[in-house]
């Protein structure tokens, strides 16, 4: 089972809260918006990923198990 995150770039407005929770998983582009489209969450980082999803004021990140 893999945990996967997906970022909606129309919703992201650059709060960068996800990056604060896990800078390695939630990378930012040059101006501070999410640079992630879809990414598999490394083993051990699942809880941080869920926290990042819950921290996004724009609810721009979804998480799924595949």
């Amino acid at each position, binding site marked *: 089972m893999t945990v996967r995150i997906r970022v909606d770039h129309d919703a992201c*407005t*650059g709060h960068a809260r996800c990056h604060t929770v896990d800078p390695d998983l939630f990378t930012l582009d040059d*101006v501070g918006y999410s640079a992630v489209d879809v990414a598999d969450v490394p083993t051990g980082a699942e809880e941080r990923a869920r926290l990042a999803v819950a921290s996004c004021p724009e609810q721009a990140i979804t998480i799924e198990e595949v």
Partner: protein
Amino acid sequence: MTVSSTTNQSGVPLRHGFLHSENADLRRVGYPEWDRLRNETPVFESDYRTPGSPNPLWYFLEYEDVYAVLRDTGLFSSVGFTHPDYESEFMMIPSEMDPPEHTKYRTLLNPLLSPTRIGQMEPTVREVCRGLVDDLADRGSCDVVTDFALQFPTKVFMGMLGVPTDDLDTLISWVHQSQHTSHADDPDGRIRDGADRAIHDFMAAIADDRRRTPRDDIVSNLLGCQVDGRPLDDRELGGILYLLFLAGLDTVASMLGFTFTHLANHPDDRRRLVADPTLSTSAVEEMLRYYSIVSISRHLTGDAEMKGCPMHQGDRVIVPLATANRDPAAFPEADSFTIDRTPNRHIAFGAGPHRCVGSHLARLELKVALEEWHRRIPDYDIPDGHQPQLRVGMFVTSLIAVPLRWGPADPGER
């Protein structure tokens, strides 16, 4: 209570003469009064009118509705919001624009205030803060608003502009006049207009100098920016610098006033922070949520109904971020201050395309202030009997003065 509530023709509660920035109960009680208003009337209409602002006025107080208003920039327009009660030639760019025009200018500002760029400023910001705290530490008391909260972000901003800090008090007084003069004290806007003009003239003089002699500062960077394939004209540059000037100085200062008041009045939170400075990140976020200082104003571009409110083109909507961020439907134990609250999905910096462009700088300044202050001055209180006075602004709420006192540092202990 001075505000009586009935209902209008469509069944929506009507509060007579309510304008948050002129409401005595909000000024006296502060945030719990916002909570009371939200619990009583999550949505209401006010019949407050001024000659410059004759249209119906609606308040939305719940997180869900505040968020919806901020996201829907097509229906809820930002044009002209900074001067709702008199004609002004000055506008904040791009705050007072709607997408897609807003996007063109926002794109220029994002890289100048990106997390990476702001992160590089941390040593400088820390040095400025340390200098101020070092000067205060031996005094044993101060008004933290005047002596620290207003000084710190203003000094950082002047550093970003590359100007000497000799004029610091003048700049602070312009911000005060522009942002904290009430309609009642300035019905025709003359006082506010004078301050806005002084700010524009000050920034224009810097721009003229950087045109001749470019440097590595924010004004020089903006002069190199292009919009629609051409450099910014004077009006555009003036509008952007006007925004940076006002939004960057007033807001962080105000947050610092609430932050130190809270920590003086809640020694348990303060001791936890002193014992574990890594809490400063979550503490800043919780301060931003619990003491959200900004209220946002929009007007409707067309007719629409929301939560039973029959709104029409030109009607005004006010969404106080404080009521959204203290809404129990959005946050567990919303009326408790939880220094390590996680997650904390607050919208103290707004939401949607107008999300505060300076938020990364603001967060850095607030975090550095917590760390540097408590490193030198871990214990303090507010002298007995002093009740900090709230100034509820149209856009920014702040404390007028917050006297703190502390004992001499114990060199054996630290």
